[in-house]
């Protein structure tokens, strides 16, 4: 029983972090119909920023992640505004390939700059854990989890309440109409991508704090973002949250009760089944279901 509880707690905490990683990915996909294969490399890039700040000037990662967010925001904005926008109207595999090229570039770049050594951001407290009876709740992951939730809700608020957010949504739903309303699509897109990158960066710093990372780890986070975005229904930010938690739990439980490493197959099985039986995602319908290029 305590085993089950432990796994559940751990899965939930992990899931929160995954959600924060995936929510931006989902937003980009929903708004501009771009599947960003370089998303995972943003996560790792963020982790390196946090790590550098921590190892160079001893900045606490939970502050460092704000810097990471700013840096990645800038990177994201530039990439979208002056590169991805160049092919945004192309068939899907054009954008897929472009972002794949970006991924190669960033990952290999990090290899050259930071080397392929495994890194981890050390804090005095992140490794400690609160004991609830037989169950342990690791402090670092708990913090990350809470932040992930807060940021996700903040994002939803931003998108639904502020002018910027609305302009993004509008552009996502109907670019033509948005333009008529005087929204500059290029800017709106660049903002969307920048926000996604910033969130990935923050998440990355936390990933680096609770775990280990090196450039090669980027691909895994991109894949997870896929699964979660689809589960939640693309562009649906609450959906991404639910999807993240769900995957966290599925993997924790699967790890407990499946033999060998079958758990790895689990996430993908879920992905394919959801796509086949409920392509608009588990959580209501995707904001942009209409934009599946039918």
């Amino acid at each position, binding site marked *: 029983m305590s085993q089950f509880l432990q796994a559940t707690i751990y899965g939930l905490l992990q899931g929160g972090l995954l959600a924060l990683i995936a929510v931006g990915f989902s937003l980009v996909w929903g708004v501009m119909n771009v599947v960003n294969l370089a998303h995972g490399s943003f996560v790792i890039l963020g982790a390196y920023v946090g790590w550098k700040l921590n190892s160079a000037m001893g900045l606490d990662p939970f502050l460092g992640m704000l810097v990471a967010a700013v840096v990645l925001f800038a990177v994201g904005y530039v990439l979208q505004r002056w590169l991805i*926008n160049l092919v945004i*109207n192309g068939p899907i595999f054009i954008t*897929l390939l472009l972002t794949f*090229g970006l991924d190669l570039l960033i990952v*290999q770049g990090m290899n050259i700059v930071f080397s392929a050594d495994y890194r981890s951001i050390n804090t005095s407290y992140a490794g400690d854990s609160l004991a609830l009876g037989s169950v342990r709740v690791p402090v670092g992951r708990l913090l990350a989890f809470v932040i992930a939730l807060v940021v996700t809700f903040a994002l939803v608020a931003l998108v639904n309440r502020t002018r910027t957010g609305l302009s993004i949504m509008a552009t996502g739903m109907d670019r033509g109409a948005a333009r008529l309303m005087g929204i500059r699509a290029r800017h709106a897109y660049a903002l969307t991508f920048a926000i996604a990158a910033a969130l990935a960066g923050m998440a990355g710093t936390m990933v680096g704090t609770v775990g280990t990372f090196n450039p090669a780890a980027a691909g895994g986070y991109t894949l997870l973002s896929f699964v979660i975005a689809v589960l939640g229904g693309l562009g649906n930010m609450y959906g991404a949250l639910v999807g993240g938690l769900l995957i966290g739990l599925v993997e924790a439980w699967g790890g407990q009760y499946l033999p060998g*490493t079958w758990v790895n197959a689990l996430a993908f099985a879920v992905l394919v089944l959801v796509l086949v039986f409920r392509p608009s995602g588990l959580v209501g319908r995707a904001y942009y279901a209409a934009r599946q290029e039918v």
Partner: protein
Amino acid sequence: MSSEARTEDAEAIERAATGRSAREPAWRRWLPFGLLLLGVLVMLGLQSQLYSGQERTVSAIFMFVALAQGWNIIGGFTGYASFGQVVFFGIGGYFTAVAMSHWGFNFWVSLVVSGLVSAAFGALIGLPLLRLKGHYFAIATLGVAEGMREVVTNVPQLTGGGAGISVPTVGKDATTHYLGNDGFYLLYLLVAALSVLVSILVARNKFGFALRAIHQDEDAAAAMGVNTTRAKVSAFALSGLVTGLVGSTYAFQQVTIFPERLFDVDITVLMVVMVVIGGSGTVLGPLLGAVALQFLSEYLRRNFTEVHTFILGAIIIAAVVLLPQGAVNYVREARQSGEWSLLANVRRYRL
């Protein structure tokens, strides 16, 4: 989407140029086949010029020609971007390895059966997945491929799991003796030629018409009597067949294979890159793309040992931005419109 439409128009001008009139002279109908034959002969002649290791390098080019052509059937002609295409490569490879090491099949039987098994698998997953469009199909197939890798990893008694599986190639339990670089050069050449042949046939026969129609407008195709479900599934199975044959050959050549490599998403991506850079939906594009990209990456690897993937990434980005429609289509359009400037070309997909 209107944007889609705009891009299609561009392709239209080009493809219409190839629109055959009813009164096509016989010799022209046979030309592509003749050229294919010529190409094969040239490659056979070339073999004598190569060292054993270069044969292997060139074999790798043949391999990717076949892989690119395989992807082009579903991704290029039919317009369904399969991002899990490597699953057929893996299944073909593992079926061959398992059949040869556990069930005493000889290679040639395994080769054929592996192809058929991959095709069957394509049909099987095609039925549900081909109802999905665009990114959804892309990601569903990706999921299948990644999942299949884990499955293979988790049945070690059959596949050797993460430790890999070895095909017996020497001694008494070798069902077929190892072919050596000479043999594999010929085998890969055969497979590549076969894939091009399939591609030529698809491009010009009734079936190809159906696929192109589906690519352009699935509703209209159905309304004109095309059984779109059957056509799509057949296309997926056919591309699975080609890809599976390559996987089988690869497994025998490698002797020992591992799940990470046989289901490596990079292989899928390479297929797509080659087709897109060469020109999707054409026979020539994938051929050109595969040859060009293989030469390029080989050259980079030899001369920029440390940073070659970095450079490759940059080149892919440049290619995608400058030649989004692929070299072949770009040249055709330019011929039609007389507009050769790449910058003008960039405008096509720009926001």
